[in-house]
């Protein structure tokens, strides 16, 4: 079968991909925007709105011979359907003829719009979607000039119906296209939206508890083709035409979602530009057109009152506000005074440019220890060797392919990967989830998104801290599963670090790599390893030489001078205070003060991703750039400028004029970045589905990618195939005394990290501190569900609510990070748990 077929649209022939949808094919190949409302290229067509009606014909065939019947001139006779057909439910076929500009089609479009408008409010100027609304656009192009519906006959419906904490529904605006319902059902696999009643009373409802409460709910407001769905964040916040779109990258996790920051000058903010909303920016390889709610709503920290604004220096025992003119020389001499015993710890919100300048600064001073924060997950070097192949697109995984997710709660760690891998399973991929406890993705692996759908998947539960053994012994313990994984056409393994020490996570990465190498799933697109390294730039830290091992070394042997850059040591590590106190000079560069100001000698305000240019390397090794969207907060500097300025102060080179120049320097000096420049990173090409142009598909204009699709760094195995498995290195895991349990820090997407706290709208959804305790253990210790327990591990002591569960390995306690005020242990450790107060009785 050939891959293309010829279709004729309005008299012209086009070669289009066989099997494609007629709406998509006409848009892509013929530049013909067949208007749609319910159709969405990311979801199954439903033919509901009837906006896409066209005349449709195909070559007539002789009944008996099956031959195509021909006109006198030899051209095939085209037999048209007697009625108009919906293009959105039509798959192209060879010889198909489509007419989109006949009077009948024009009338039909006009009629459908008239029907829709007969019950739609006609108040576009006050609607959130006004200016970027498909209904508005299509009415301008195809619609009736005036309404024939009597105004008093219109239905009056609820205008501000909360579907959940985050999303409001205006029932009068809803055109019943079911995009939101289908998104939740098909894309997210959480069918918490549905229609209620029928006929003209058909309405969107949720009857779930809590309501519309998923990590992806905001996407419905983008795809809603009218202004029926609004977010509590943006609702009535601005007119779309006042907004200025700035391309950016999500600062939260390894997915590197491409986003667009909608900026507007704001009265409440001294007339400066602020982020009014965050929208997805299409990048089919990375996030398609979806973003998580954390990415969408979590931008408030960028203009938080708690941001550091002034450089501060300790003089006479107290930290005092200063200015750069004074601070830079002072800092330079303090660093010099360390006599080469200088080290740095950098967080994964630091851009590549920042890291490059920081590294040079440390090296200029004679230091060599570059630590990555948090030092919880290793294996980045392994991912740089056998990470997913060049050109990988998780959106292409499907039937015949396989996915293993091990030691990760993916929805909490990298929600977009969760979403895309769950969809891969919907398309037929075999999904295996292995963990010491239940995670949400496991539900999909076992039962699929809907209970009536046969899905391919399995779950493996291993014992406390046994991830490495589970990986290593996969073939022996679960031969059938291992066989399906190794026999798959394409295989992606996602490895996390739940229940593992740093060395354990490294060993897991190696074990996973070995499985991929042995089953020949490396060096190819859509195959290989993915690590859920914390933060947005975990791989960037690796490529620039910042390692968790160095961090551990710094912690064990504190240097004289330590630069802490965008790392909240005190929030993350209960022992940080004790080892930091041994450092003579602590230089702290960050957005927020996590309490370190008590210890620091210098506190330097730096800029968030929204205030400067920069780039991150995502978990798939894609270098992606973000752009300056808002002005600086106080006197804060981009970190690269701070460190570059210090180098200049120290006489070690000139401060680069721009982030772009830093990148040029970086790519000239660091092999992995060879050939990468801002210009290259900014390149875009048209992607399918085409969401740009005149915007007939989507309810949002911020989607077009104008900021660049990024460049993927090839893995070592992309360059030379055939790697050999390596020995899984020795690793330590805590051993448990009697009465001890394994305290396993886990990640929650919504938590009390410094840069998330200002997102007040999500605060109600941050869980109160809890720990998941194995049911048998709980019974033995007299702990009931809801009891307050104390968990003691080393210097960490926290009180949390016990969540008793059978779905976690024995002697394992999962303790979410960043829910408690106090830091919990950095990685897995032995500890004790005891009951301190009984559960508050229900209703009490």
């Amino acid at each position, binding site marked *: 079968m050939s891959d293309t077929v010829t279709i004729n649209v309005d008299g012209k022939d086009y070669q289009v991909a066989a099997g494609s949808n007629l709406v998509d094919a006409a848009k892509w190949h013929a530049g013909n925007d067949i208007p749609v409302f319910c159709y969405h290229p990311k979801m199954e067509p439903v033919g509901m709105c*009837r906006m896409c009606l066209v005349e449709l014909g195909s070559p007539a065939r002789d009944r008996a011979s099956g031959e195509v019947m021909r006109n006198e001139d030899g051209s095939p006779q085209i037999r048209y359907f007697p009625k108009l057909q919906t293009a959105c439910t039509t798959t192209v076929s060879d010889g198909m003829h489509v007419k989109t500009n006949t009077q009948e089609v024009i009338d039909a479009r006009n009629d459908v719009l008239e029907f829709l408008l007969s019950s739609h409010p006609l108040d576009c100027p006050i609607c959130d979607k006004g200016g970027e609304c498909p209904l508005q656009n299509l009415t301008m192009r195809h619609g009736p000039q005036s309404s024939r519906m009597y105004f008093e006959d219109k239905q009056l419906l609820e205008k501000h119906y909360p579907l959940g904490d985050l999303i409001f529904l205006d029932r009068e605006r809803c055109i019943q296209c079911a995009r939101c319902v289908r998104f939740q059902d098909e894309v997210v696999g959480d069918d918490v939206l549905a229609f209620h009643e029928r006929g003209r009373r058909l309405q969107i409802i949720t009857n779930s508890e809590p309501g519309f409460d998923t990590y992806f709910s905001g996407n419905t407001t983008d795809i809603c083709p009218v202004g029926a769905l609004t977010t509590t964040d943006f609702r009535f916040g601005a007119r779309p035409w006042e907004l200025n779109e700035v391309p950016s990258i999500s600062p939260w996790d390894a997915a590197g979602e491409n986003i667009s920051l909608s900026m507007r000058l704001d009265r409440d903010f001294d007339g400066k530009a602020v982020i009014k909303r965050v929208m997805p920016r299409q990048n089919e390889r990375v996030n398609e057109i979806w973003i998580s709610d954390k990415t969408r709503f979590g931008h408030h920290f960028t203009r938080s009152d708690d941001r550091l604004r002034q450089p501060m220096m300790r003089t006479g025992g107290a930290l005092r506000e200063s200015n750069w003119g004074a601070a830079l020389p002072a800092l330079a001499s303090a660093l010099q005074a360390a006599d080469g015993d200088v080290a740095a710890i950098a967080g994964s919100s630091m851009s590549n440019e920042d890291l490059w300048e920081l590294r040079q600064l440390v090296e200029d001073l004679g230091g060599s220890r570059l630590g990555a924060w948090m030092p919880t997950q290793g294996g980045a070097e392994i991912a740089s060797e056998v990470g997913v192949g060049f050109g990988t697109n998780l959106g292409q995984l499907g039937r015949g392919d396989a996915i293993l997710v091990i030691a990760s709660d993916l929805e909490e760690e990298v929600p977009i990967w969760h979403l895309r891998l769950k969809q891969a399973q919907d398309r037929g991929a075999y999904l295996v989830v292995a963990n010491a406890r239940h995670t949400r993705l496991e539900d999909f692996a076992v039962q699929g998104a809907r209970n009536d759908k046969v899905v391919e998947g399995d779950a493996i539960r291993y014992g406390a801290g046994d991830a490495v053994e589970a990986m290593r012994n996969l073939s022996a313990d679960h031969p059938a599963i291992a066989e399906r994984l190794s026999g798959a056409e394409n295989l992606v393994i996602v490895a996390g670090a739940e229940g593992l020490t740093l060395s354990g996570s490294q060993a897991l990465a190696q074990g996973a790599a070995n499985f991929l190498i042995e089953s020949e799933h490396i060096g190819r697109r859509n195959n290989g390893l993915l690590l859920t390294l914390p933060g947005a730039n975990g791989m960037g830290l690796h490529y620039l030489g910042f390692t968790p091992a160095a961090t551990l070394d710094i912690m064990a042997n504190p240097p004289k001078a330590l630069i802490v850059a965008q790392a909240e040591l005190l929030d993350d590590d209960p022992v940080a205070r004790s080892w930091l106190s041994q450092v003579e000079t602590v230089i702290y560069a960050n957005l927020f003060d996590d309490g370190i100001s008590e210890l620091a000698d210098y506190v330097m305000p730096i800029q968030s991703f929204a205030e400067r240019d920069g780039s991150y390397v995502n978990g798939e090794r894609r270098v992606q750039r973000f752009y300056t969207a808002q002005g600086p907060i106080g006197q804060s500097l981009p970190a690269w400028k701070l460190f570059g300025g210090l180098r200049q102060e120290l006489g070690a080179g000139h401060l680069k004029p721009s982030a772009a120049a830093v990148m040029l320097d970086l790519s000239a000096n660091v092999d992995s970045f060879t050939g990468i420049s801002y210009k290259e990173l900014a390149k875009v090409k048209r992607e399918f589905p085409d969401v740009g142009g005149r915007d007939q598909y989507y309810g949002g204009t911020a989607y077009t990618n104008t900021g660049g699709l990024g460049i993927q760094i090839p893995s070592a195995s992309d360059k030379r195939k055939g790697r050999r498995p390596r020995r899984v290195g020795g690793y330590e895991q805590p051993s448990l005394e009697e009465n001890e349990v394994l305290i396993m820090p886990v990640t929650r997407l919504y938590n009390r990290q410094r840069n998330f706290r200002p997102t007040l709208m999500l605060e109600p959804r941050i869980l109160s501190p809890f720990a998941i305790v194995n049911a048998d253990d709980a019974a033995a210790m007299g702990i009931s569900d809801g009891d307050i327990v104390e968990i003691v591990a080393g210097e960490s002591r926290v009180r949390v609510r016990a969540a008793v569960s059978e779905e976690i390995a024995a002697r394992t306690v999962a303790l979410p990070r960043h829910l408690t005020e106090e830091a919990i242990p950095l990685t897995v450790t032995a500890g004790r748990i005891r009951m301190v107060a009984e559960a508050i009785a229900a209703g009490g």
Partner: protein
Amino acid sequence: MHILLRGRDIDNIKQLAVYEKHDGFAGMKKALAMTPAEVIDVVKASGLRGRGGAGFPTGVKWSFIPQHEPVKFVTINADESETGTFKDREIMEENPYQLIEGSLICAYAIQAKAVYIYLRGEFWDIGDQLDECIEALREKGFVGKNIMGSGYDCEVYTHLGAGAYICGEESALLNSLEGYLGQPRVRPPFPAQKGGGLYKEATVVNNVETLANVPYIMSEGADAFKAIGTEQSAGNKIYCVSGHVKRSGNYELPMGTTFRELLYDHAGGPLYEDRPFKAMLPSGGSGPIVPLTDEVLDTPMSYEDCANIGTIIGSASIIVMDETVDMTWVASKVTKFFKHESCGKCTPCREGTYWLDKVIDRILDGRGSPDDVKRIADVAENMAGTTLCALGDFAANPIIHTIRHFPDDFAQHVQS
């Protein structure tokens, strides 16, 4: 002669023993002795056409089922919700085994795994009775494993709807049976195709009356059936007569009988002697209305002849109205029905039925203008042919055709 309403001729035919004594399961036995393909050929040859409304040839429908598919289903459309239709009810109440036998023959012919009988929710006591019949048949080895020792297995189940006319539309029926909203599906794939039927498996959907004919066809032969009725409309048909006649009720007569014979000879003519017939809806609320002229009265009730008078025989639910009836009111009644029953899935039907109802109310209230009559005619025209399923067309019919045939009835409301 009754083929379907045999409950009227034979006492207690709803008891299995009585049914068996009167040739019950003879057709099934014959079928089991044939290959499935042969059974389909017999039904094809009989000329039986679907009695659910569309009149699609039944054997042809069965032959669309891909034989190699491992799982297939039969679904019986017992939703009977068309205004003025009450024939399937009588079959199921009085002659239930014949329906089950017919559906088992169909199931065998396509090698279905199971039969689901989708009953409108109000028929719950019929459902109970059918469940008892199924149990009785199971005990005899006529349902379940190894039916009649043939090696063929098939289950029969009942399912109750819950008040939704649209669930009579076959793809909505399948959605409803699967536990989804009873809204129609996009076609293709059609129910007979993999991906389009029940649980996405190839499925035959047939009306109760259609399948109740099948035992006769199998036992008496295709020719015997074809001999009844007209060239293109074979067999008997149950006509449900209601409205302004003396004797409303079901009448089983050969297809091709004239309306006159049905309405005068059987139904006894106008309810009130001094009020002649004015109009008739021959296919419930959904088909085009026709004035009851002599030409119409002399038209044979067949698929082909009804087309000549601009209407359809459909499910043959014949609602008769005498001269006292205001057709604007009729249009309003029927429009209210469709407004109430529109599933809301597609725009023209959802919005159109609501809108039409509003404007007709205005006209009936005396607040309308001649423009409003034009407006509803136009809105109805815009609905027709653009909707996802035929309900939208049905809903346009009462407006378009009452205005076309009875313009004065509308004019009188908008004149003053």
